[in-house]
């Protein structure tokens, strides 16, 4: 048990027994290794379910939408930024929340680890800097830095941006990270090349919508992909429909996405759809000096008019 787990359980027990919150949202061990799942704890004697390790990549802000009760929510850096976004978008009230911040050292990419192992992984354990995966007749240890989720290796907001409780010391933020090398590479392609590149990127998509469902931003009661009158986008595997889904999904996240990586993590076929949301993140940063979810005071880029907003593209 990591010490963060122990602190989390202590905080959760205290909040639940004092009645400060009715429910704590955190993580519990998944049914298979490296797949921790969301966990809703309502009684102090259930806090033993809560865990914290390098497999808590799901974004828990997703479970706050329109809740009415008082909630304690476990939040790493990106989750806390999505909590802020949820508050700004009136999906939850700040007064309802006790944010239990967890300074984060990055989440492990289960695919990277699985790919480097010769068989099915049955157990994982970890130290501060290394992760060990074991299975039938093998045991492999990896430097954690080598098996981080891509978004975590590029993360510059590891500490929660808002919190009422803190489950551990604040960590040093990564400096000098080049967040957009992958986006620049796509920007530099010719339109023909780029069309082909996205065709290949999206070819395996089975339209399961796991990426949408994992995302805290996608809370519309009826998503445009599910509408049938009018039907904005076809429901099959036609490449044009798949592409339309992905571009629209990304645009709906413009100025809101925190690059938490929950979408990419959830994808059963391993598509890096974060490339789209990152392009918009980069644009927001360069054109509007905006980063999502950093403050409860600032209004989002799409929510605010400034006379000097760039508009050279309009004739």
């Amino acid at each position: 048990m990591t010490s963060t787990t122990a602190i989390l359980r202590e905080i959760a027990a205290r909040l639940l027994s004092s009645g400060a919150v009715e429910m704590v949202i955190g993580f519990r061990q998944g049914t298979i290794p490296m797949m921790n799942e969301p966990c809703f704890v309502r009684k102090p004697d259930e806090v033993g379910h809560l865990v914290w390790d390098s497999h808590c990549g799901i974004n828990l802000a997703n479970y706050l939408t329109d809740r009415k009760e008082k909630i304690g929510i476990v939040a790493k850096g990106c989750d806390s930024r999505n909590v802020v976004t949820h508050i700004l978008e009136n999906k939850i009230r700040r007064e309802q929340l006790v944010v239990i911040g967890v300074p984060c050292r990055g989440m492990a990419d289960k695919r990277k680890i699985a790919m480097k192992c010769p068989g099915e992984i049955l157990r994982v354990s970890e130290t501060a800097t290394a992760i060990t995966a074991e299975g039938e007749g093998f045991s492999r240890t990896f430097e954690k830095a080598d098996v981080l989720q891509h978004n975590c290796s590029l993360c510059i907001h590891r500490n929660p941006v808002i919190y009422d409780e803190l489950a551990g010391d604040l960590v040093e933020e990564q400096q000098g990270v080049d967040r957009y090398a992958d986006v620049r590479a796509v920007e530099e392609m010719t339109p023909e090349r780029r069309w082909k590149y996205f065709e290949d990127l999206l070819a395996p998509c089975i339209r399961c919508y796991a990426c949408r469902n994992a995302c805290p931003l996608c809370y519309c009661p009826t998503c445009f992909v599910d509408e049938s009158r009018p039907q904005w986008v076809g429901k099959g595997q036609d490449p044009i429909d798949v592409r339309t889904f992905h571009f629209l999904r990304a645009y709906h996240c413009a100025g809101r996405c925190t690059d938490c990586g929950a979408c990419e993590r959830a994808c059963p076929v391993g598509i890096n759809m974060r490339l789209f949301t990152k392009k918009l993140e980069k644009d927001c940063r360069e054109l509007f000096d905006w980063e999502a979810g950093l403050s409860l005071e600032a209004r989002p880029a799409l929510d605010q008019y400034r006379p000097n907003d760039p508009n050279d593209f309009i004739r």
Partner: protein
Amino acid sequence: MGIEPGRLHFSWISSAESTKFVTVATQVTEAVRALGPNTRFIQPPLAEVA
């Protein structure tokens, strides 16, 4: 997105600016015609699919 840049145009034209509308519409038409027929984001008609 992989669409040629010249295929997408934005303009803000007041209902009082008829001459601007004509100018912009002409320019857009010429720019798109120069690019030739669109090949992307086109689905075959249903009859061909069946």
